């Protein structure tokens, strides 16, 4: 390769008004690792094939996860990326950093890695892109000396993540940051030492807006919810009306169950019909807020289309106490029952959503000791082939 890096195909990706990762990479192309990364990528585009070898086994002593091995298939052409391992660093709850903390990470990464990062991976970790095997232990040593830790990878509990929660959002129905912190610490063994059938992701969103997209992206979505009535500040409703805001068009007509009415300047909600979609609360933040009896709903099985197709999470527990004073015991208890049943009966590389589909919801609920409830199904009795035990018992009497 000549010293002058020519990348006509990659250059195409710099065109247009959008941010470009090529631009970012080029700004660091004086580093041999980044230069060879660009070179190999250009060659990949030209030859229409990837030049990364499949996986590779690298890790940190004592941990089974946290580092993903990546090797170039053509290291003789691009020696800078002969090793290009990824390091996942456990992010703080809600991604709150001081600039000092970010500098700490980048000082370590500039010294021992490529300097390239991905903030953040879809699991939530900080993703440090590109280092060599011999740098892994020094990186780990320096990170942990400053109280950082690696995240999960492989068939383990992946780094739990959450929305900004009560730190910055008035809709949070429970402390997502505290629960994430608690679960991360309680399940260190599960996080660092892969022993599950496959990955297990937990995401915590403080309200049904689900800012972490937990329903679509996590095996276990813990979504903040309330049991009682939406709180209404009628004087704030009157202010909305006086300001000319069209509550009829933007709120009442958008309500999926049409359970809201406006009489003069008074808003009424038939809470027995409310689906808790939080649209009205989003549009009228000064007047409406979630009820006072707060907790979370738990849905299982969300995943992206790897191995089997994509799945959206399915509701398993409509309401669970999120009790910090009690050490979040209810959540731990449920989580451990789910893991035990999945571990015992799940297959290799079978996500919890696929597992539930295979063994059926009925068997799964029995296995984890959760009562069947109307909230777990979309419509009542639309499938005549699903029966619960009580049904058989009645029939045989």
């Amino acid at each position: 390769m000549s010293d002058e890096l020519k990348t006509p195909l990659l250059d195409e990706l710099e065109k247009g008004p959008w941010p470009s990762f090529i631009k970012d990479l080029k700004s660091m192309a004086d580093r041999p690792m980044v230069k060879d990364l660009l070179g190999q990528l250009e060659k990949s585009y030209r030859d229409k094939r990837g030049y990364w070898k499949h996986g590779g086994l690298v890790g940190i002593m004592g941990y089974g996860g946290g580092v993903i091995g990546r090797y170039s298939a053509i290291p003789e052409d691009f020696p800078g990326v002969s090793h290009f391992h990824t390091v996942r660093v456990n992010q703080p709850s809600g991604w709150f950093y001081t600039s000092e903390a970010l500098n700490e990470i980048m000082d370590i990464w500039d010294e021992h890695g490529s300097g390239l990062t991905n903030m953040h991976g879809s699991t939530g970790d900080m993703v440090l892109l590109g280092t060599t095997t011999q740098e892994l232990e020094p990186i780990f040593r320096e990170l942990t000396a400053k109280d950082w830790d690696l995240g999960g990878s492989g068939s383990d509990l992946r780094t739990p993540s959450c929305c900004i929660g009560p730190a910055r959002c008035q809709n949070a129905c429970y402390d997502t940051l505290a629960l994430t912190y608690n679960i991360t610490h309680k399940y260190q063994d599960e996080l660092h030492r892969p022993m599950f059938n496959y990955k297990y992701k937990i995401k915590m969103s403080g309200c049904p807006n689900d800012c972490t997209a937990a329903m679509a992206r996590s095996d276990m979505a813990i979504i903040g919810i309330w049991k009682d009535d939406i709180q209404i500040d009628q004087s704030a409703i009157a202010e909305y009306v006086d300001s000319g805001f069209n509550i009829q068009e933007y709120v009442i007509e958008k309500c999926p169950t049409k359970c809201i009415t406006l009489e003069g300047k008074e808003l009424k909600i038939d809470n027995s019909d409310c689906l808790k979609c939080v649209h009205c609360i989003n549009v009228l933040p000064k007047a409406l807020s979630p009820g006072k009896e707060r907790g979370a709903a738990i849905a299982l099985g969300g995943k992206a289309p790897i191995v089997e197709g994509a799945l959206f999470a399915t509701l398993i527990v409509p309401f669970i106490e999120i009790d910090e004073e009690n050490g979040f015991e209810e959540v731990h208890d449920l989580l451990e029952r789910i893991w035990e049943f999945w571990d015992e009966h799940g297959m290799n590389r079978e996500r919890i959503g696929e597992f539930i589909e295979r063994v059926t919801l009925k068997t799964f609920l029995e296995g984890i000791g959760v009562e069947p409830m109307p909230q777990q199904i979309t419509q009542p009795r639309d499938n005549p082939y699903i029966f619960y035990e009580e049904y058989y018992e009645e029939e045989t009497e």
Partner: protein
Amino acid sequence: MSFELNGKSYETDDDGYLINLEDWNEDVAKYIAQQEGVEMTDAHWEVVNFLRDYYSEYKIAPMIKILIKEMKKMFGPEKGSNAYLYQLYPAGPALQACKIAGLPKPTGCV
């Protein structure tokens, strides 16, 4: 890649796993363990022997959860845990114990 031991040459892949599984013997295991910085004790051999027995019967390395369950059955609950296996093999049972047992490289994922 390859290494020499007692006048015989052994072929390995890039990560140090034996290419020819029939090449394995206890001396080879001890040599690989030494390269890994692992000192083989009776407890280490329990794991390696189980892995070899399992592999010769099923032609595949056991899943970690099966390894843990079988260890628990055979040697008691204190040896049937992931933490125990990592104490013996700090780089992990899949990475290190399988390599020392002369099994093919386990396929993992990111």
